[in-house]
């Protein structure tokens, strides 16, 4: 199967003749964009394969978007709307009807962050020959590059009369941002003469306006089918944002959470079934093949100094450069300019949770539109009356003196039904508020890790200067195996209420606490003392520390 001439640039095209045509005015400014728009609709088949039909799959009839968080952002934290590090699985259903033979089906409007190698098409009636994703886009610069060596028309408009002259020619070079063309008169450079000049290209191009995924299918007989295209796409993310409100007495917490999901792609997903997945999934940094926007056309010229620009100071040169760019050069900005996320929408839907293997899948109960460059919030949970314990604590080396250390504060509860929780809590970010009269005061913002049912939840609230910890060596032990240091810890409470305090100690290898005047507990293999410190009082704790064998 070897069809005929297939070179897209048509080097063997018949030779063009100079055809000066006069008398028709043309709007040069609209010229390039008009050509581009006209071509976008009439993309020809790119290669020489004998394709029976080149068709565009219908618009998606059913869309599903499942968003995964950025794998590196495990410990919580917020998402950066300008650089979304997560990804999404997008499934869309489209209808196609195929003639017999080999056809190419094009899927348009897929997300620009598509990871092409993850694309799957199911439900096709025939054999899949190949899948392609073309990232070379139709831009003024790529149009120019494609026309290299091929006949084009040069349009030159008389500024005075408005008459446009059309001159046949060949583009000889577009290297380094400069354009050189050749006509029957000789070789010239574009936009160096000071005359309004532009090219009109022939209308055959295989370049596409958007990155496009296509599938070549072979069927024995004509068939209609509903196909599902699913693929992974970058530039999505989601985060869980918890808001805790403490009751006035500080004993109960009302916990609410939003799921914030964001789409940084240029493509929107109307009326989509939306899911998010919690838990860490392995995801390689799948490189998305870069889309080539080919850069701007600069139409650089030869040196253009004049007798009036001497001596050129740095300031002048820069200004002149800018000016000449503005005026004389067709500076075409690529489409790539990714605007920030524009819109923030808040909905009152509550997600439902189900198990997906070892992950947690949350489903937005109604279809929702995930527009391009949009972040959206849906309700994750609302729980109230969660009993919390307010604690102060400190972590110290067992054998180090401390003059004064402000204690840390935290709230503790357990993720179980008794504590009005008992549901998986995906990692994210938590803000805690306390009431102050009719208003609320933010007291803490902290990251949250993934919490399974039954795990302990500790929310740090910062440090308290009103609770200070001092550690001293009271008496050095005798040298040798049995000599134990006597150490004293003092906790001073400036609050008007008694507080609960937890002291955690860090032992170095071989060290051991042999005696203490408070009950010694152990948590995660480390010594722990629990103390009650009365209002405006000091609690004292002493313990004896054995260093073990010493040499």
């Amino acid at each position, binding site marked *: 199967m070897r*069809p005929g001439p*297939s070179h897209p640039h048509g*080097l063997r095209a018949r030779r063009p003749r100079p055809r000066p045509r006069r008398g028709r005015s043309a709007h040069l400014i609209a010229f390039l964009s008009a050509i581009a728009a006209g071509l976008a609709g009439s993309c020809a088949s790119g*290669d*020489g394969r004998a394709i029976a039909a080149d068709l565009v799959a219908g618009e998606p009839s059913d869309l599903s978007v*499942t968003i*995964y968080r950025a794998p590196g952002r495990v410990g919580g934290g917020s998402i950066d709307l300008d650089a979304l590090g997560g990804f999404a699985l997008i*499934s869309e259903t489209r209808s196609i009807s195929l003639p017999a033979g080999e056809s190419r089906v094009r899927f348009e409007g897929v997300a620009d962050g598509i990871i092409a*190698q993850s694309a799957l098409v199911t439900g096709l009636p025939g054999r899949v020959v*190949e*899948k*392609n*994703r*073309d*990232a*070379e886009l139709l831009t003024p610069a790529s149009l120019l590059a494609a026309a*290299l*060596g091929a*006949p084009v028309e040069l349009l030159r408009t008389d500024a005075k009369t408005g008459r446009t002259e059309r001159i046949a020619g*060949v583009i*000889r*070079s577009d*290297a*380094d941002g400069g*354009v050189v063309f050749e006509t029957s008169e*000789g*070789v*010239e*450079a*574009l936009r*160096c*003469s*000071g*005359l309004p000049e532009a090219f009109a290209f022939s209308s055959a191009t295989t370049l596409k306006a958007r990155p496009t995924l296509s599938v070549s299918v072979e069927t024995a007989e004509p068939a209609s089918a509903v196909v599902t295209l*699913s693929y992974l796409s970058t530039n999505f993310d989601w985060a869980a944002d918890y808001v805790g409100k403490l009751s006035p007495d500080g004993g109960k917490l009302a916990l609410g959470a939003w799921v914030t999901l964001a789409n940084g792609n240029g493509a929107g997903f109307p009326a989509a079934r939306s899911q998010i997945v919690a*838990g*860490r*999934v392995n*995801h*390689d940094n799948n490189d998305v*093949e870069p*889309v080539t926007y080919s850069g701007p056309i600069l139409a*650089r*010229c*030869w*040196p253009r*100094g004049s007798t009036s620009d001497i001596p050129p100071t740095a300031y002048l040169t820069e200004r002149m450069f800018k000016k000449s760019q503005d005026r004389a050069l067709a500076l075409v900005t690529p489409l790539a300019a990714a605007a920030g996320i524009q819109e923030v929408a808040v909905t009152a839907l509550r997600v439902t949770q189900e*198990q997906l*293997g*070892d*992950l947690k*899948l949350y489903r937005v109960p109604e279809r929702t539109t995930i527009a391009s460059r949009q972040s959206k919030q849906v309700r994750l949970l609302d729980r109230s009356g969660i009993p919390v314990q307010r604690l102060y604590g400190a972590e110290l080396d067992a054998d180090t003196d401390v003059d004064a250390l402000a204690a840390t504060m935290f709230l503790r509860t357990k993720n179980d039904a008794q504590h009005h929780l008992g549901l998986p809590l995906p990692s994210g970010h938590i803000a805690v508020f306390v009431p102050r009269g009719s208003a609320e005061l933010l007291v803490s913002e902290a990251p949250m890790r993934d919490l*399974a049912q*039954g*795990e302990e939840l500790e929310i740090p609230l910062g440090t308290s200067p009103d609770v200070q910890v001092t550690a001293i060596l009271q008496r050095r032990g005798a040298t040798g195996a049995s000599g134990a240091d006597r150490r004293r810890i003092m906790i001073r409470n400036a609050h008007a209420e008694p507080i609960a305090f937890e002291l955690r100690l860090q032992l170095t*290898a071989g060290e051991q606490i042999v005696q203490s005047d408070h009950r010694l507990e*152990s948590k*995660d*293999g480390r010594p722990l003392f629990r103390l009650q410190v009365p209002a405006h009082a000091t609690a004292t704790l002493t313990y004896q520390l054995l260093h073990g*064998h010493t040499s």
Partner: protein
Amino acid sequence: MRLLLWSVLGAGILIAGAAVAGTGADRDLAVTIYGEDLALIQDQREIDLAAGRQRIEFADVSAQIRPETASLSARDIRIVEQNFDFDLLTPAKLMEKAVGHVVTIVRVNPATGAETREQAEVLAANGGVILKIGERIEVLRDDGLPVRVIFDKVPDNLRARPTLSVTLETSHAGKRGATLSYLTPGLGWHADYVALYDAAAGKIDVQGWITLTNTSGTTYTEARTLLVAGTPSQVDSPAQTYNQWRPPVRRGNLEAAGTETGTRERLGDFYLYPLPERTTIANQQTKQVSFLDVHGVPAEHAYEFRNAWLASVTPAQSAKSVYRFSTSAHAGLGDQLPAGVLRFYLHDQRGEPQFIGEDRIEHTPMGSTLSLVTGDAFDVKIKAVVAKRTRKAERDWQTDMRYEFTNASPAPVIVTLLQTGLWGDARIVAQSQPSLRRSADVAEWAVSVPANGQSQVTASFETQY
């Protein structure tokens, strides 16, 4: 003279006296792609030679061609020299090369539109263009008025793109087939796998796709394409110094390398994957062709936790979710797997496939056992605790470890606990359940954790330090 030049350039077959090798229907391209960023192009074209010495230009070769690897072969030719011209044709270069030569300048009167033509000699093009017109000297466009500059021809070795040319000699004129072969970066391939796991049956369906990417700047039309799995040895060449990123060393996922031989074509130790049909590899294109489609392969789902040293890990961390299967012809995929990424999917409660994670595999022989990590298990967590560390003697320590397992899922699980960093001198003196010493460095326990429950393993290690 101009008319002659025009007709020549319109047909596009001759530039500056050099023949351009044809790119028409008689062209036959073969592309062999090795790994991620290297390809061998064999470009067969019909060339029409005159007798004697001449220069042939090759258009439409890879824009990233490594010219030092190019070689041309044809019947009855002798290669004189091979050139790679990379002086690019720009307006500035055009003007520079015109210094000392005569150009035509056309002035257009902005008020009347009247044209005046003059011959001018370019004296200099440094920072501005200085012209000698008759006896006067002018700076080009000093007055800001439109002036067209027309050059007679494009200088000989200026090109729009870097161009390969070959000067050769032949004793008799005529058409003949010629093959140009060269290496180029910018073309690469890898495999992509889709695995759909059926949790109830404990089976996976695996599809394999060959993914080919072309960023070489050139389109290869109707090429016979061959993909080579395996890595040919290469010395670093300038074109290869970037793009050499390798993924960091990670947990090995090849549990047991296979010893079976597949039915695929081989060349030495390389596996060959010829594409069944000619295909056009467009510039900036990602192309996928199916090569594997297997259903109902037994697979098991497991959990794994690795504690790197006899140290505490708190708060609790998730176990890794592991999927294990074979590439054997018996109860396996029955094929060797070229390197790539394997993506796992699982049906959700509405029966729709959802992505649950991926892992990268290296070239894997047939008959191997693979254990791939898809991510963390949300509900299965492990806390490792140093319960006690005591000094028994001068250089003799005992470390009592406690591993606490929790399972918040409604199904019982078995977690493979790996305690690494044992160095060979760590002796297990007591343990709550028997272990398997995988190596001097690694001890392994299989720990069952009941549904919505917890369990615990303790072990005491004696180490010399």
